[in-house]
């Protein structure tokens, strides 16, 4: 451990050394798989077993199938899937924010045992596997399910599990909401509430103080939570697979799952993974730029 008399160079070396295992982990378990996906996407298919044969030398990569997938994404059938997926994610993130922000705000304003209990309640959904929770919704939303029957009583009678966009968005919100609330809570918990009080002292109404002080100061938490749930939502396939199983609600993950697990065209699935990765990198870039801007404003 670095002593009180250690030089800045020693401290830098110490921190670099501490970061080394994590960096190696990332290199091995992120960069290598990412490169492998590219090698599969631009590789070939074993003509006998119809399995992907990665081509490790980029000079030997073939782009025919990738080009076919890209043209489908840009102007073919996969364009609709991408747009649908994007729409689902945008709506689901928006609903998560509307539902999750008040919860995070409320918990952040609590103290002592009450806060601890509320935090515990927020974590409870993680105790049960998401798969099991979604399967329970399948039972509830079946034509004779409890939820379907209850909704019929109030005059809402429809098939919930046969290609319903509402059900898929609901499933996404249900599955990812806790992941939004926690970073949002962390951001609100760190908020300097004296600034809100100052705004009130200067004549701002509750709404104005929220709009001009609380909301801007929690922007980093909103961005972090939104990115945290949007990224996995883009690749999600089991929500629509369990709650819909219809082509009408197919997401990008559905297509990737088919190409990789149900077909002989695994290189096309890998190409779609890369397309999605590029799109998500754009979302991530937006988040990082937004975060840097927020920090500049706050400093």
């Amino acid at each position, binding site marked *: 451990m670095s002593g009180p008399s250690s030089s800045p160079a020693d401290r830098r070396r110490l921190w670099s050394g501490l970061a080394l295992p994590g960096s190696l982990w990332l290199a091995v378990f992120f960069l290598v798989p990412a490169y492998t996906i590219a090698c599969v996407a631009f590789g070939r298919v*074993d003509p*006998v077993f119809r399995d992907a044969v990665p081509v490790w030398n980029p000079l030997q990569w073939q782009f025919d199938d990738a080009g076919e997938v890209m043209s489908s994404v840009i102007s073919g059938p996969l364009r609709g*899937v991408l747009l649908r997926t994007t729409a689902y994610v945008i709506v689901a993130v928006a609903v998560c924010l509307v539902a999750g922000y008040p919860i995070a705000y409320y918990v952040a304003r609590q103290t002592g045992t009450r806060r601890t209990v509320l935090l515990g309640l927020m974590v409870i959904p993680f105790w049960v596997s998401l798969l099991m929770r979604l399967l329970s919704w399948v039972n509830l939303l*079946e034509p004779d399910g409890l939820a379907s029957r209850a909704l019929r009583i109030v005059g809402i009678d429809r098939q919930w599990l046969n290609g319903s966009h509402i059900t898929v968005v609901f499933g996404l919100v249900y599955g990812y909401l806790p992941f939004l609330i926690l970073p949002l809570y962390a951001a609100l918990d760190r908020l300097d509430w004296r600034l809100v009080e100052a705004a009130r002292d200067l004549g701002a109404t509750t709404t104005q103080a929220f709009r001009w002080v609380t909301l801007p100061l929690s922007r980093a938490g909103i961005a972090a939570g939104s990115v945290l749930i949007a990224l996995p939502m883009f690749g999600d396939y089991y929500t629509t697979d369990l709650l819909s199983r*219809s*082509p*009408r609600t197919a997401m990008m993950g559905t297509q990737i799952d088919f190409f990789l697990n149900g*077909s002989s065209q695994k290189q096309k699935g890998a190409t779609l993974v890369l397309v999605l990765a590029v799109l998500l990198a754009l979302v991530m870039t937006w988040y990082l730029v937004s975060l840097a801007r927020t920090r500049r404003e706050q400093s």
Partner: protein
Amino acid sequence: MGLGAAALSPALLAACGGGSGGSSEQLPIGTPQNPVRLPVTREPIADGLAPESGTLRIYDYADYLNPDTIARFESTYGVEVELSTFATEEEALIKLRSGAVDADLAIGLTDLSIAPLVAADLLQPFNRSYLSNFTNLIAGLQDPYYDQGSQYTVAQFIYANGIGYRTDRNLDTSVFTGNEGWNALWDSRYRGRVGILDFYRDTLSMPMLRRGLTDVNTSDRAVVEQAGADLAEVVQAVQPQLDGISYQEIPAGNRDLGFCWSGEMLAGPGYLPEGVDPSVLGFWYPGNTLTGNDFYCLLAKSTRPVLAHAFVDFFLDVDNALENQLYVGYQPALQAIETEQLIERNGLPESLIDALVTPERYESGQRLVRLSPEVDAIWVDVWSEFIAG
């Protein structure tokens, strides 16, 4: 390194015309019109050996063997059976090839897989002297087109593609005659109450059969695209669910009809809620449909090949096969099993007698055979477009 031509058995390549291109056309693909005798690159085990002790490792679909029947086999031979499972045939092939799964017997594979398994030298031939019950098999399956002489395979179950349905719902079952029955899947009156199989070969073939076509292995892109367009109409008309669980959903009452395999409906009574009469389940299939079978394979690296033979023979026994059918649902490929036995002993409801595949109907059905990579890519593209919605 992936398995290309270099990893194929030289003897097989020689038998199939050789070459180094690694194209699947070099594989001996049997069809009903052109049966094949697969090349044998290793000798079967010798006659008269005693079954090994220890653990027999089996690779199979989940729920494809009756635990009670397995337990009786274990007590009969004083051994243990260890089961590993796969979800799709593609997964099984890849894991067997890569060595990720080490087993004695593979069960549930079909003729779509046999050529690559033999090509990669992953199988060993059966020794018929250990299979005293082999003659219980349906005659046509004792010498199947994909493996003449049943050298590497022993048939297990037979099935046909058709429509499973509820007899207690308001369905127009009068259409279930001739080829017209397929139209039920396009009937908007059943909107939201229909399921169709999520398997591209089976499901794209179905609209072709509906149109009276018989070439379900076509390389004609226009025909496959027409099938995709027809399926899109199904989505518009009835908003079906795509999956392979009609055997649960129809008995549970969550759907009224579904495009499924006959074995799914034969398994249906086991999924009915308590107190519901099995006669609520029905199945229809026309003469022009897909029929098929799966089989047992003895893996080349088996460390207990004699015990594996004993296991196969055990399940070829009529009583054991009936017990297994009671749990699995699928119909054993045994000519020795009579419809009356399934009704009286296994409680098969009369409403499901039509789900049984007679040897004659099995023979007259269409078969899916392995496609070349180029043709398969056409089918995959059309299916991808269909599931894109």
